[in-house]
Protein backbone atom coordinates (compact mmCIF):
# COMPACT_ATOMS: atom_id res chain seq x y z
CA UNK A 1 0.00 0.00 0.00
CA UNK A 2 2.81 2.40 0.88
CA UNK A 3 6.06 2.64 -1.07
CA UNK A 4 9.09 1.60 1.02
CA UNK A 5 7.02 0.86 4.19
CA UNK A 6 5.09 -2.06 2.70
CA UNK A 7 7.37 -5.03 2.01
CA UNK A 8 5.11 -6.12 -0.86
CA UNK A 9 5.54 -2.85 -2.71
CA UNK A 10 7.00 -3.11 -6.21
CA UNK A 11 7.85 -0.14 -8.39
CA UNK A 12 5.91 -1.40 -11.43
CA UNK A 13 3.19 0.16 -13.55
CA UNK A 14 0.33 -1.71 -11.83
CA UNK A 15 1.31 -0.53 -8.37
CA UNK A 16 1.88 3.02 -9.52
CA UNK A 17 -1.43 3.28 -11.40
CA UNK A 18 -3.55 1.60 -8.73
CA UNK A 19 -2.03 3.26 -5.71
CA UNK A 20 -1.34 6.49 -7.55
CA UNK A 21 -5.08 6.76 -8.25
CA UNK A 22 -5.90 5.93 -4.64
CA UNK A 23 -3.55 8.49 -3.14
CA UNK A 24 -4.57 11.07 -5.73
CA UNK A 25 -8.24 10.74 -4.75
CA UNK A 26 -7.44 10.64 -1.04
CA UNK A 27 -5.27 13.74 -1.38
CA UNK A 28 -8.03 15.75 -3.04
CA UNK A 29 -10.56 14.66 -0.40
CA UNK A 30 -8.09 15.31 2.43
CA UNK A 31 -6.96 18.71 1.15
CA UNK A 32 -10.55 19.77 0.48
CA UNK A 33 -11.67 18.90 3.99
CA UNK A 34 -8.57 20.45 5.55
CA UNK A 35 -9.27 23.70 3.70
CA UNK A 36 -12.90 23.70 4.85
CA UNK A 37 -12.03 23.04 8.48
CA UNK A 38 -9.21 25.61 8.64
CA UNK A 39 -11.32 28.27 6.91
CA UNK A 40 -14.28 27.52 9.20
CA UNK A 41 -12.03 27.88 12.24
CA UNK A 42 -10.62 31.13 10.84
CA UNK A 43 -14.09 32.52 10.08
CA UNK A 44 -15.31 31.56 13.52
CA UNK A 45 -12.29 33.13 15.20
CA UNK A 46 -12.69 36.32 13.17
CA UNK A 47 -16.41 36.33 13.81
CA UNK A 48 -17.20 36.76 10.12
CA UNK A 49 -20.58 35.50 9.01
CA UNK A 50 -21.38 36.78 5.55
CA UNK A 51 -23.42 33.71 4.75
CA UNK A 52 -27.10 33.53 3.75
Amino acid at each position, binding site marked *: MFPVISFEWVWDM*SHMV*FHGGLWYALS*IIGMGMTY*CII*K*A*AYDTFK*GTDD*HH
Partner: protein
Amino acid sequence: MDSALIPDGVKRCPIWQFGLAIAVVGAVLLWGVFAMLLVWIKGLNQTNMNNAYGFALWIWADLGVIALGGGAFFTGLMRYVFGKDELKYIINYAVLIGFICYSSALLILAIDIGQPLRGWFIFWHANVHSMLTEVAFCLTCYFGVLCIEYLPLILENKQVDRVPFFHNLSHNMHEIMVVFAATGAFLSFFHQGSLGGVSGVLFGRPFGYREHIFIWPYTFFLFTWSAAACGPCFTILVTKLTEKIAGKKLVKDNVIELLAKIAGWMLATYVIAKLIDTWYWATVTAPSKGHVMMDFYTNNPDSVYGIWILILEVGVCGVLPALILITDKGRKTPATLWTAVILASLGVLLNRWVMVLQVLAVPVMPFEAWSTYFPSWQEIATTILPVAYGVILVLISYRYLPIFPQEAELNPIEEPAPPAETAEVTEKNGELAPEGELAPAEA
Protein backbone atom coordinates in the same frame (compact mmCIF):
# COMPACT_ATOMS: atom_id res chain seq x y z
CA MET B 1 -36.73 18.63 22.76
CA ASP B 2 -37.88 16.91 19.57
CA SER B 3 -39.63 19.96 18.11
CA ALA B 4 -36.51 22.06 18.67
CA LEU B 5 -34.67 19.84 16.19
CA ILE B 6 -37.30 19.92 13.44
CA PRO B 7 -36.50 22.37 10.60
CA ASP B 8 -38.41 25.66 10.53
CA GLY B 9 -41.50 26.03 8.40
CA VAL B 10 -42.30 22.33 8.06
CA LYS B 11 -44.68 20.01 9.87
CA ARG B 12 -43.79 16.54 11.12
CA CYS B 13 -45.83 13.71 12.59
CA PRO B 14 -46.11 13.35 16.40
CA ILE B 15 -43.14 11.81 18.16
CA TRP B 16 -45.07 8.64 19.14
CA GLN B 17 -45.91 7.96 15.50
CA PHE B 18 -42.28 8.49 14.53
CA GLY B 19 -41.12 6.22 17.37
CA LEU B 20 -43.58 3.53 16.33
CA ALA B 21 -42.31 3.58 12.74
CA ILE B 22 -38.71 3.33 13.96
CA ALA B 23 -39.67 0.43 16.27
CA VAL B 24 -41.38 -1.55 13.49
CA VAL B 25 -38.50 -1.13 11.04
CA GLY B 26 -36.05 -1.57 13.91
CA ALA B 27 -37.47 -5.06 14.55
CA VAL B 28 -36.60 -6.03 10.97
CA LEU B 29 -33.18 -4.46 11.45
CA LEU B 30 -32.58 -6.55 14.57
CA TRP B 31 -33.51 -9.71 12.67
CA GLY B 32 -30.85 -8.82 10.13
CA VAL B 33 -28.32 -8.03 12.84
CA PHE B 34 -28.99 -11.42 14.44
CA ALA B 35 -28.31 -13.17 11.12
CA MET B 36 -25.21 -11.02 10.62
CA LEU B 37 -23.85 -12.04 14.02
CA LEU B 38 -24.54 -15.68 13.18
CA VAL B 39 -22.46 -15.35 10.02
CA TRP B 40 -19.64 -13.57 11.84
CA ILE B 41 -19.60 -15.97 14.78
CA LYS B 42 -20.26 -19.26 12.99
CA GLY B 43 -18.83 -18.43 9.58
CA LEU B 44 -19.93 -18.66 5.96
CA ASN B 45 -21.42 -22.12 6.54
CA GLN B 46 -24.55 -20.16 7.44
CA THR B 47 -25.01 -19.43 3.74
CA ASN B 48 -25.99 -21.63 0.82
CA MET B 49 -22.98 -20.54 -1.20
CA ASN B 50 -20.99 -23.41 -2.68
CA ASN B 51 -18.14 -24.11 -5.07
CA ALA B 52 -20.25 -22.95 -8.02
CA TYR B 53 -21.56 -19.86 -6.25
CA GLY B 54 -18.66 -18.04 -4.64
CA PHE B 55 -20.63 -14.91 -5.51
CA ALA B 56 -24.27 -15.13 -4.49
CA LEU B 57 -27.14 -13.06 -3.11
CA TRP B 58 -24.85 -10.66 -1.25
CA ILE B 59 -22.77 -9.77 -4.28
CA TRP B 60 -25.93 -9.26 -6.32
CA ALA B 61 -27.28 -7.00 -3.55
CA ASP B 62 -23.94 -5.22 -3.46
CA LEU B 63 -23.90 -4.53 -7.18
CA GLY B 64 -27.59 -3.68 -7.07
CA VAL B 65 -27.39 -1.04 -4.35
CA ILE B 66 -24.25 0.44 -5.90
CA ALA B 67 -26.10 0.84 -9.21
CA LEU B 68 -29.18 2.29 -7.54
CA GLY B 69 -26.99 4.64 -5.50
CA GLY B 70 -25.53 5.93 -8.77
CA GLY B 71 -28.12 8.69 -8.63
CA ALA B 72 -25.90 10.50 -6.12
CA PHE B 73 -22.81 10.78 -8.30
CA PHE B 74 -24.74 11.45 -11.50
CA THR B 75 -27.07 14.06 -10.01
CA GLY B 76 -24.04 15.66 -8.31
CA LEU B 77 -22.20 15.70 -11.62
CA MET B 78 -25.16 17.33 -13.35
CA ARG B 79 -25.73 19.84 -10.56
CA TYR B 80 -22.19 20.94 -9.71
CA VAL B 81 -20.13 20.25 -12.83
CA PHE B 82 -22.65 20.71 -15.65
CA GLY B 83 -24.57 23.46 -13.84
CA LYS B 84 -28.10 22.03 -13.91
CA ASP B 85 -29.18 24.39 -11.16
CA GLU B 86 -32.74 23.09 -10.73
CA LEU B 87 -31.34 19.83 -9.41
CA LYS B 88 -30.26 21.58 -6.21
CA TYR B 89 -33.78 20.87 -4.93
CA ILE B 90 -33.28 17.11 -5.12
CA ILE B 91 -29.51 16.72 -4.70
CA ASN B 92 -29.78 16.41 -0.89
CA TYR B 93 -32.05 13.43 -1.18
CA ALA B 94 -29.93 11.90 -3.95
CA VAL B 95 -26.91 12.20 -1.64
CA LEU B 96 -28.81 10.63 1.25
CA ILE B 97 -29.94 7.71 -0.94
CA GLY B 98 -26.41 7.32 -2.26
CA PHE B 99 -25.01 7.39 1.27
CA ILE B 100 -27.44 4.67 2.35
CA CYS B 101 -26.70 2.54 -0.73
CA TYR B 102 -22.93 2.76 -0.41
CA SER B 103 -22.83 2.24 3.34
CA SER B 104 -25.09 -0.77 2.76
CA ALA B 105 -22.70 -2.07 0.11
CA LEU B 106 -19.79 -1.80 2.53
CA LEU B 107 -21.82 -3.50 5.26
CA ILE B 108 -22.71 -6.38 2.92
CA LEU B 109 -19.06 -6.72 1.95
CA ALA B 110 -18.08 -6.79 5.61
CA ILE B 111 -20.47 -9.72 6.07
CA ASP B 112 -19.48 -11.42 2.83
CA ILE B 113 -15.75 -11.55 3.49
CA GLY B 114 -16.50 -13.83 6.43
CA GLN B 115 -13.60 -12.49 8.47
CA PRO B 116 -14.23 -8.72 8.74
CA LEU B 117 -11.21 -8.21 10.99
CA ARG B 118 -9.11 -8.77 7.88
CA GLY B 119 -11.03 -6.29 5.75
CA TRP B 120 -8.03 -3.98 5.62
CA PHE B 121 -5.96 -6.67 3.83
CA ILE B 122 -7.41 -5.56 0.49
CA PHE B 123 -5.64 -2.22 0.96
CA TRP B 124 -2.46 -3.38 2.61
CA HIS B 125 -1.88 -6.51 0.52
CA ALA B 126 -3.49 -5.14 -2.63
CA ASN B 127 -3.69 -7.43 -5.64
CA VAL B 128 -3.01 -4.88 -8.32
CA HIS B 129 -4.15 -7.23 -11.09
CA SER B 130 -7.70 -7.49 -9.74
CA MET B 131 -10.63 -5.36 -10.81
CA LEU B 132 -12.09 -5.93 -7.34
CA THR B 133 -9.11 -4.16 -5.77
CA GLU B 134 -9.97 -1.11 -7.82
CA VAL B 135 -13.58 -1.50 -6.71
CA ALA B 136 -12.52 -1.64 -3.06
CA PHE B 137 -10.33 1.45 -3.42
CA CYS B 138 -12.91 3.51 -5.30
CA LEU B 139 -15.82 2.31 -3.18
CA THR B 140 -14.11 3.31 0.04
CA CYS B 141 -12.97 6.67 -1.30
CA TYR B 142 -16.38 7.40 -2.78
CA PHE B 143 -18.06 6.53 0.49
CA GLY B 144 -15.77 9.14 2.04
CA VAL B 145 -16.99 11.63 -0.57
CA LEU B 146 -20.62 10.76 0.22
CA CYS B 147 -19.95 11.32 3.93
CA ILE B 148 -18.54 14.73 3.02
CA GLU B 149 -21.61 15.48 0.90
CA TYR B 150 -23.98 14.32 3.65
CA LEU B 151 -22.18 16.14 6.47
CA PRO B 152 -23.34 19.69 5.53
CA LEU B 153 -26.91 18.44 5.75
CA ILE B 154 -26.36 17.29 9.32
CA LEU B 155 -24.65 20.59 10.10
CA GLU B 156 -27.72 22.43 8.77
CA ASN B 157 -29.89 20.97 11.49
CA LYS B 158 -31.54 23.86 13.33
CA GLN B 159 -29.65 23.31 16.58
CA VAL B 160 -26.28 22.30 15.11
CA ASP B 161 -26.35 25.30 12.78
CA ARG B 162 -26.39 27.63 15.80
CA VAL B 163 -22.80 26.71 16.58
CA PRO B 164 -20.75 29.24 14.54
CA PHE B 165 -17.97 26.79 13.67
CA PHE B 166 -20.42 24.22 12.27
CA HIS B 167 -22.33 26.92 10.43
CA ASN B 168 -19.12 28.13 8.81
CA LEU B 169 -17.94 24.61 8.06
CA SER B 170 -21.20 23.74 6.34
CA HIS B 171 -21.00 26.93 4.27
CA ASN B 172 -17.38 26.30 3.27
CA MET B 173 -18.14 22.72 2.28
CA HIS B 174 -20.99 23.90 0.05
CA GLU B 175 -18.62 26.37 -1.58
CA ILE B 176 -16.15 23.75 -2.76
CA MET B 177 -18.66 20.94 -3.25
CA VAL B 178 -17.87 20.95 -6.96
CA VAL B 179 -14.44 19.50 -6.13
CA PHE B 180 -15.97 16.66 -4.12
CA ALA B 181 -18.68 16.07 -6.72
CA ALA B 182 -16.11 15.83 -9.53
CA THR B 183 -13.96 13.48 -7.44
CA GLY B 184 -17.04 11.40 -6.70
CA ALA B 185 -17.90 11.16 -10.40
CA PHE B 186 -14.33 10.10 -11.19
CA LEU B 187 -14.36 7.41 -8.51
CA SER B 188 -17.85 6.22 -9.46
CA PHE B 189 -16.93 5.90 -13.11
CA PHE B 190 -14.14 3.49 -12.20
CA HIS B 191 -15.78 1.39 -9.52
CA GLN B 192 -19.10 1.04 -11.37
CA GLY B 193 -17.11 0.09 -14.43
CA SER B 194 -14.83 -2.34 -12.65
CA LEU B 195 -17.81 -4.15 -11.19
CA GLY B 196 -18.96 -4.72 -14.75
CA GLY B 197 -15.44 -5.60 -15.77
CA VAL B 198 -15.39 -8.53 -13.32
CA SER B 199 -17.71 -10.67 -15.43
CA GLY B 200 -16.38 -9.23 -18.69
CA VAL B 201 -12.86 -10.60 -18.12
CA LEU B 202 -13.98 -14.16 -17.28
CA PHE B 203 -12.76 -15.77 -20.50
CA GLY B 204 -13.62 -19.20 -19.10
CA ARG B 205 -17.28 -18.19 -18.82
CA PRO B 206 -18.52 -17.17 -22.27
CA PHE B 207 -21.87 -16.01 -20.92
CA GLY B 208 -20.23 -13.12 -19.11
CA TYR B 209 -17.12 -12.59 -21.22
CA ARG B 210 -17.01 -9.57 -23.55
CA GLU B 211 -14.54 -8.11 -26.03
CA HIS B 212 -12.28 -5.36 -24.73
CA ILE B 213 -11.47 -1.74 -25.48
CA PHE B 214 -7.84 -1.57 -24.32
CA ILE B 215 -7.96 -3.34 -20.94
CA TRP B 216 -11.67 -2.72 -20.36
CA PRO B 217 -14.37 -5.15 -21.47
CA TYR B 218 -17.61 -3.67 -22.85
CA THR B 219 -19.36 -4.51 -19.59
CA PHE B 220 -17.12 -1.95 -17.87
CA PHE B 221 -18.79 0.87 -19.79
CA LEU B 222 -22.26 -0.66 -19.72
CA PHE B 223 -22.26 -0.88 -15.92
CA THR B 224 -21.27 2.76 -15.49
CA TRP B 225 -23.80 3.80 -18.11
CA SER B 226 -26.65 1.82 -16.58
CA ALA B 227 -25.89 3.15 -13.09
CA ALA B 228 -25.93 6.72 -14.39
CA ALA B 229 -29.25 6.00 -16.12
CA CYS B 230 -31.07 3.98 -13.46
CA GLY B 231 -29.63 5.62 -10.33
CA PRO B 232 -31.55 8.87 -10.94
CA CYS B 233 -34.68 6.79 -11.68
CA PHE B 234 -34.32 5.21 -8.25
CA THR B 235 -33.88 8.68 -6.70
CA ILE B 236 -37.14 9.76 -8.34
CA LEU B 237 -38.85 6.56 -7.21
CA VAL B 238 -37.80 7.01 -3.57
CA THR B 239 -38.75 10.70 -3.68
CA LYS B 240 -42.20 9.81 -5.00
CA LEU B 241 -42.57 7.10 -2.37
CA THR B 242 -41.58 9.55 0.36
CA GLU B 243 -44.15 12.03 -0.94
CA LYS B 244 -46.84 9.32 -0.83
CA ILE B 245 -45.94 8.29 2.72
CA ALA B 246 -45.60 11.88 3.97
CA GLY B 247 -48.84 12.79 2.19
CA LYS B 248 -47.42 15.98 0.71
CA LYS B 249 -45.44 17.30 -2.21
CA LEU B 250 -41.74 17.70 -1.46
CA VAL B 251 -40.16 18.52 -4.81
CA LYS B 252 -41.65 20.58 -7.63
CA ASP B 253 -42.65 18.80 -10.82
CA ASN B 254 -40.17 20.67 -13.03
CA VAL B 255 -37.25 19.29 -10.97
CA ILE B 256 -38.51 15.71 -11.20
CA GLU B 257 -39.21 16.12 -14.89
CA LEU B 258 -35.73 17.44 -15.60
CA LEU B 259 -34.08 14.56 -13.77
CA ALA B 260 -36.43 12.09 -15.45
CA LYS B 261 -35.59 13.55 -18.86
CA ILE B 262 -31.84 13.26 -18.28
CA ALA B 263 -32.27 9.72 -16.92
CA GLY B 264 -34.52 8.86 -19.86
CA TRP B 265 -31.95 9.85 -22.45
CA MET B 266 -29.21 8.09 -20.54
CA LEU B 267 -31.38 4.98 -20.40
CA ALA B 268 -32.29 5.20 -24.08
CA THR B 269 -28.64 5.43 -25.15
CA TYR B 270 -27.69 2.69 -22.69
CA VAL B 271 -30.35 0.35 -24.06
CA ILE B 272 -29.09 0.94 -27.62
CA ALA B 273 -25.53 0.16 -26.48
CA LYS B 274 -26.78 -2.90 -24.56
CA LEU B 275 -28.66 -4.18 -27.62
CA ILE B 276 -25.56 -3.76 -29.79
CA ASP B 277 -23.45 -5.47 -27.11
CA THR B 278 -25.91 -8.37 -26.87
CA TRP B 279 -26.06 -8.75 -30.64
CA TYR B 280 -22.25 -8.71 -30.95
CA TRP B 281 -21.87 -11.16 -28.07
CA ALA B 282 -24.50 -13.49 -29.58
CA THR B 283 -23.10 -13.41 -33.12
CA VAL B 284 -19.35 -13.05 -32.58
CA THR B 285 -18.12 -13.55 -29.00
CA ALA B 286 -20.12 -16.62 -27.98
CA PRO B 287 -19.58 -18.47 -31.32
CA SER B 288 -15.84 -17.78 -31.04
CA LYS B 289 -15.95 -19.75 -27.75
CA GLY B 290 -17.86 -22.63 -29.34
CA HIS B 291 -21.38 -21.65 -28.27
CA VAL B 292 -24.58 -20.39 -29.79
CA MET B 293 -26.59 -17.82 -27.92
CA MET B 294 -29.48 -20.14 -27.08
CA ASP B 295 -27.10 -22.50 -25.24
CA PHE B 296 -27.36 -20.04 -22.38
CA TYR B 297 -31.14 -19.84 -22.34
CA THR B 298 -32.38 -23.33 -23.16
CA ASN B 299 -31.68 -26.93 -22.22
CA ASN B 300 -31.21 -26.05 -18.58
CA PRO B 301 -33.73 -28.26 -16.75
CA ASP B 302 -32.38 -27.47 -13.27
CA SER B 303 -32.47 -23.76 -13.81
CA VAL B 304 -35.18 -21.15 -14.36
CA TYR B 305 -33.16 -19.10 -16.80
CA GLY B 306 -34.76 -18.84 -20.23
CA ILE B 307 -34.85 -16.26 -23.02
CA TRP B 308 -37.60 -14.55 -20.99
CA ILE B 309 -34.99 -13.05 -18.70
CA LEU B 310 -33.24 -11.28 -21.57
CA ILE B 311 -36.53 -9.94 -22.93
CA LEU B 312 -37.56 -8.81 -19.45
CA GLU B 313 -34.24 -7.11 -18.74
CA VAL B 314 -33.63 -5.33 -22.03
CA GLY B 315 -37.16 -4.99 -23.39
CA VAL B 316 -39.65 -4.56 -20.57
CA CYS B 317 -37.25 -2.97 -18.05
CA GLY B 318 -35.05 -1.18 -20.58
CA VAL B 319 -36.69 -0.11 -23.83
CA LEU B 320 -40.12 0.54 -22.28
CA PRO B 321 -39.04 2.92 -19.46
CA ALA B 322 -36.62 4.66 -21.83
CA LEU B 323 -39.44 5.34 -24.31
CA ILE B 324 -41.66 6.66 -21.52
CA LEU B 325 -39.01 8.93 -20.02
CA ILE B 326 -37.85 10.53 -23.26
CA THR B 327 -41.39 11.66 -24.09
CA ASP B 328 -42.78 14.80 -22.52
CA LYS B 329 -46.20 13.24 -21.95
CA GLY B 330 -44.67 10.12 -20.41
CA ARG B 331 -42.76 12.16 -17.84
CA LYS B 332 -45.71 14.42 -17.02
CA THR B 333 -48.25 11.65 -16.49
CA PRO B 334 -47.86 10.33 -12.93
CA ALA B 335 -48.85 6.74 -13.78
CA THR B 336 -46.35 6.38 -16.62
CA LEU B 337 -43.62 8.14 -14.63
CA TRP B 338 -44.14 5.70 -11.75
CA THR B 339 -44.11 2.77 -14.18
CA ALA B 340 -40.93 3.95 -15.86
CA VAL B 341 -38.90 4.55 -12.69
CA ILE B 342 -40.03 1.25 -11.16
CA LEU B 343 -39.16 -0.68 -14.32
CA ALA B 344 -35.80 1.06 -14.73
CA SER B 345 -34.86 0.31 -11.10
CA LEU B 346 -35.92 -3.32 -11.47
CA GLY B 347 -34.11 -3.51 -14.79
CA VAL B 348 -30.74 -2.57 -13.37
CA LEU B 349 -31.23 -5.04 -10.50
CA LEU B 350 -32.11 -7.75 -13.01
CA ASN B 351 -29.05 -6.89 -15.08
CA ARG B 352 -26.82 -7.28 -12.03
CA TRP B 353 -28.53 -10.59 -11.21
CA VAL B 354 -27.86 -11.89 -14.71
CA MET B 355 -24.25 -10.72 -14.70
CA VAL B 356 -23.54 -12.26 -11.29
CA LEU B 357 -25.78 -15.27 -10.77
CA GLN B 358 -26.72 -16.44 -14.25
CA VAL B 359 -23.04 -16.28 -15.19
CA LEU B 360 -22.32 -18.72 -12.37
CA ALA B 361 -25.33 -20.95 -13.16
CA VAL B 362 -24.07 -21.76 -16.65
CA PRO B 363 -21.93 -24.94 -16.61
CA VAL B 364 -18.25 -24.48 -17.36
CA MET B 365 -17.49 -28.06 -18.41
CA PRO B 366 -19.53 -29.94 -21.04
CA PHE B 367 -20.34 -32.75 -18.61
CA GLU B 368 -21.62 -30.41 -15.88
CA ALA B 369 -25.25 -29.48 -15.26
CA TRP B 370 -26.59 -26.00 -14.59
CA SER B 371 -25.89 -24.99 -11.02
CA THR B 372 -28.77 -24.05 -8.80
CA TYR B 373 -28.74 -21.87 -5.74
CA PHE B 374 -31.31 -20.62 -3.27
CA PRO B 375 -30.15 -18.32 -0.48
CA SER B 376 -30.38 -19.34 3.17
CA TRP B 377 -32.56 -17.33 5.56
CA GLN B 378 -29.40 -15.78 7.00
CA GLU B 379 -28.45 -14.47 3.57
CA ILE B 380 -31.96 -13.11 3.02
CA ALA B 381 -32.08 -11.48 6.46
CA THR B 382 -28.70 -9.84 6.02
CA THR B 383 -29.77 -8.57 2.59
CA ILE B 384 -32.94 -7.06 4.05
CA LEU B 385 -30.90 -5.55 6.91
CA PRO B 386 -29.55 -2.65 4.80
CA VAL B 387 -33.06 -1.91 3.54
CA ALA B 388 -34.30 -1.53 7.12
CA TYR B 389 -31.25 0.56 7.99
CA GLY B 390 -31.94 2.75 4.96
CA VAL B 391 -35.56 3.30 5.92
CA ILE B 392 -34.54 4.30 9.46
CA LEU B 393 -31.94 6.74 8.17
CA VAL B 394 -34.47 8.27 5.77
CA LEU B 395 -36.99 8.61 8.61
CA ILE B 396 -34.48 10.35 10.88
CA SER B 397 -33.02 12.55 8.13
CA TYR B 398 -36.44 13.59 6.84
CA ARG B 399 -37.60 14.51 10.34
CA TYR B 400 -34.60 16.49 11.51
CA LEU B 401 -32.69 17.72 8.47
CA PRO B 402 -33.62 20.17 5.71
CA ILE B 403 -33.56 17.49 3.01
CA PHE B 404 -36.16 19.09 0.75
CA PRO B 405 -35.53 22.82 0.29
CA GLN B 406 -38.91 23.31 -1.45
CA GLU B 407 -40.99 21.59 1.22
CA ALA B 408 -41.89 24.72 3.21
CA GLU B 409 -42.87 26.60 0.07
CA LEU B 410 -44.97 23.74 -1.28
CA ASN B 411 -46.66 23.08 2.08
CA PRO B 412 -47.17 26.38 3.89
CA ILE B 413 -48.22 25.93 7.49
CA GLU B 414 -51.53 27.70 8.13
CA GLU B 415 -51.50 30.09 11.05
CA PRO B 416 -53.69 28.77 13.87
CA ALA B 417 -57.08 30.53 14.10
CA PRO B 418 -57.31 33.05 16.94
CA PRO B 419 -59.03 31.80 20.10
CA ALA B 420 -62.81 32.25 20.20
CA GLU B 421 -62.71 35.02 22.86
CA THR B 422 -60.28 37.15 20.86
CA ALA B 423 -62.35 36.66 17.74
CA GLU B 424 -65.45 37.86 19.57
CA VAL B 425 -63.72 40.99 20.84
CA THR B 426 -62.41 41.75 17.36
CA GLU B 427 -65.92 41.37 15.97
CA LYS B 428 -67.34 43.71 18.59
CA ASN B 429 -64.65 46.28 17.86
CA GLY B 430 -65.60 46.02 14.21
CA GLU B 431 -69.21 46.77 15.07
CA LEU B 432 -68.11 49.79 17.10
CA ALA B 433 -66.20 51.10 14.12
CA PRO B 434 -68.83 51.96 11.53
CA GLU B 435 -66.32 53.42 9.07
CA GLY B 436 -64.34 50.22 8.72
CA GLU B 437 -60.69 50.92 9.37
CA LEU B 438 -61.22 54.17 11.26
CA ALA B 439 -60.88 54.18 15.01
CA PRO B 440 -64.14 54.87 16.94
CA ALA B 441 -63.08 58.40 17.87
CA GLU B 442 -62.30 59.33 14.27
CA ALA B 443 -65.58 57.85 13.12
